[in-house]
């Protein structure tokens, strides 16, 4: 049969107030059945100083909780300082999750993992990244099951985005600031008000997207609960759970039970649905449909 | 929409029988298709769609299905025009200006001198195929080579005057000479 599916907790993508951020990780360390945790500011370098002075303690606590910890790097570095910061964490010897090709360059062949922000759409590109030192790769969230099947065969390196609002785009511009008529440089960290992202509706009032600073996400919450068996059979080795404000320990437990076969997809879906999710569950991307498509049993 | 023919013309044509117009239009279209064999290939799967070309200042509509070698064209009164996949509507001189490259279709749409309805993908395919066809008056009229130069120049001058007279949108095409 297939190997045991592991669980990876992705980095918190939002600007959570520091106490909330610390409490979240402490609880994950103590209670969540996840195998590894990726931590670090991925979206906006302006937020980074807030976690810099507590991150060491949090990493320590997570490791004591038996989690493998990876430092996730910025997804869209552009300034000299942003690249220098990435170089610094590499130098410091952390295990790195690369989210941009500049980070892969700086790693210079050292073993690392790749996050969902690097474009790896096919078996050739995946093989190239494995040659460059990647040991595990989280695929972009828009990839359909069909592509995942082709890519996961025989490498024990593929991770799939399995829970959370799907990250869709990055920009030089901050939309949370723009919405509040502010420029990015003087944003007053307005994004802190949107712990699951700022909901964006169409002119007809239909919920559509969510804004997380410079990042745009889907309004829905992507889930792989209906496809866990298929993913395992395809050779996928890990599922990524992306933090939302809902009870992530419970989310992790649901996926763990599902991967272990001790609960059914239907029960798992129901268990997720009663949590305070920011949007409806969707598996459109996995099914090769629009990513906004509501999940069906 | 700018560039309308005067209502007196529209009213007058309203009483004309459509059959002669259809015969002429078919002739022009088959001239164009014969001169540009790659046209249908470029349309690809959209060659099977029916397009309503709607000169909004005239009382009739052209229904065109450009499939393969036997392109189908009908001229019908606007009130009975139906069963099409996509409609492209603009004053007659504007539509003609799109075919001969005087106007950029995008620009016309942005300035709302052109309206589209229905299958957007089919409209885009048609527009791109027309763009590539580089049709000129002599080709559409099926004239011999010796007449092409003078006829094209003459028609162009005529249309420049006509568009000016009708207050049609400013010309932006390769033929406009705006930046020559």
């Amino acid at each position, binding site marked *: 049969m297939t190997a045991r599916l592991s669980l990876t907790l992705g980095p918190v993508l939002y600007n959570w107030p520091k106490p909330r951020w610390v409490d979240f990780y402490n609880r994950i360390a103590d209670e969540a059945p996840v195998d590894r945790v990726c931590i670090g500011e991925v979206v906006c370098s302006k937020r980074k100083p807030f976690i810099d002075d507590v991150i060491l303690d949090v990493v320590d606590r997570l490791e004591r909780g038996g989690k493998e910890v990876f430092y996730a790097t910025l997804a869209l570095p552009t300034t000299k300082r942003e690249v220098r910061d990435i170089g610094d964490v590499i130098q410091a010897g952390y295990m790195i999750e690369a989210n941009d090709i500049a980070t892969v360059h700086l790693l210079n062949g050292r073993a690392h993992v790749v996050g969902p922000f690097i474009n790896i759409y096919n078996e050739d590109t995946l093989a190239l990244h494995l040659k460059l030192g990647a040991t595990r790769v989280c695929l972009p969230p828009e990839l359909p099951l069909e592509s995942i099947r082709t890519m996961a065969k025989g490498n024990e390196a593929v991770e799939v985005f399995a829970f959370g609002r799907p990250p869709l785009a990055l920009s030089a511009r901050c939309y949370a600031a723009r919405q509040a008529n502010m420029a990015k440089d003087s944003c007053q960290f307005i994004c802190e008000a949107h712990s699951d992202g700022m909901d964006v509706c169409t002119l007809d009032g239909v919920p559509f*997207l969510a804004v997380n600073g410079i990042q745009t996400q889907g309004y829905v919450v992507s889930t792989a609960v209906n496809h866990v068996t298929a993913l395992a059979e395809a050779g996928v080795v890990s599922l990524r759970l992306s933090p939302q404000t809902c009870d992530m320990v419970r989310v992790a437990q649901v996926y763990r039970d599902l991967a272990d076969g001790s609960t059914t997809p239907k029960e798992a879906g129901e268990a997720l649905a009663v949590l305070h999710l920011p949007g409806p569950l969707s598996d459109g991307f996995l099914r090769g449909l629009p990513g906004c498509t509501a999940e069906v049993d | 929409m700018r560039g309308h023919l005067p209502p007196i013309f529209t009213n007058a044509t309203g009483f004309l029988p459509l059959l002669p117009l259809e015969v002429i239009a078919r002739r022009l279209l088959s001239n164009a298709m014969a001169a540009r064999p790659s046209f249908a290939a470029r349309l690809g799967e959209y060659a099977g769609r029916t397009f309503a070309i709607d000169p909004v200042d005239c009382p009739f509509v052209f229904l065109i299905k450009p499939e393969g070698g036997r392109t189908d064209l009908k001229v019908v009164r606007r009130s009975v025009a139906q069963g099409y996949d996509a409609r492209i509507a603009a004053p007659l001189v504007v539509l003609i200006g799109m075919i001969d490259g005087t106007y950029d279709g995008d620009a016309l749409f942005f300035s709302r001198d052109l309206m589209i309805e229905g299958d957007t993908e089919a409209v885009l395919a048609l527009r791109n195929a027309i763009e590539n066809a580089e049709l000129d008056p002599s080709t559409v009229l099926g004239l011999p080579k010796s007449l092409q130069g003078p006829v094209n120049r003459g028609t162009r001058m005529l249309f420049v005057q006509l568009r000016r007279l009708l207050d049609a949108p400013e010309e932006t095409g390769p033929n406009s000479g705006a930046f020559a």
Partner: protein
Amino acid sequence: MTTPLELVCPAGTPAGLKTAVDAGAHSVYCGYRDETNARNFPGLNFDRAEMKEAVTYAHDHGTKILIALNTFMRAGSTDLWKRGVDDAVAAGADALILADVGLVEYARKAHPKQRLHLSVQAAAATPEAIAFYRDRFGIARVVLPRVLTVEEIARLTAHAAPCETEVFVFGGLCVMAEGRCMLSSYATGKSPNMTGVCSPPSHVSYREESDALVACVGGFTVERFERGEPAGYPTLCKGRFEAQGAVSHLFEDPVSLNAVELLPRLAEIGVTAFKIEGRQRGRAYISTVVRAFRKAIDAMAAGDKVDFDELRALTEGQRETTGAYKKAWR
């Protein structure tokens, strides 16, 4: 200035290519009629025979042809992209414009001498990212993302050498980092990265609604043009949305990029090539814009004054922006 500036122009059809060449393009970029290129629109692009003719026509007039294969290979179907690379090389392309690093690796191995450019879709926005492609695969030129400021472009250009840089100066503007945007995929299931279409026309619909023109993408209403208001193609990131109770063009106003006033500065900092967006645009657009920019570049090379008014007139009546090139945009 040591190397002459290069004007890189779009062509969506063979006729468009002739128009661009005749209007004075130094280079023309185009792609095959399938999902290997990022402008995979109906009725657009070149079949194999047309591409060969295009190369001949361009070379006869001293113009270079850059063939774009700038989408990401679909898992299990990578042959389609590799065949595209092989055919483009055989057709005599002066350079290939690639985005997928897996395809870059293939092209470099299969055709060691072929000149390769890195597409904007690869979003190489740092000296380190450029170094990755330059040092490992011999990328000769990188098309820079539109998310950068002029100062950042200057720094990148200095670090990229001997790799050249190319920047967009006119046309459509991506608000998101190129090649890293899945908005269309989310709303329609067609992915810019995989299918080569953004806000695909197959999923665009217009309807008239009490004097207004309503535009939808994938069933989501993204814009409402009142009577007399100029309309635009409903690109998802340039739509009007509601957030926090307020309706606005949340991501970007329906503007297009016009960086004409920055041309001298961009030339001064060592940018090699200026790129005009718009393979989906008609011959009318191409001839006008290419002619005007060529005139400006020639004037700059000769040390003459550039007629900025003429270039500004290109977008007159429409709204334009210098985009991220000026930091206040952010």
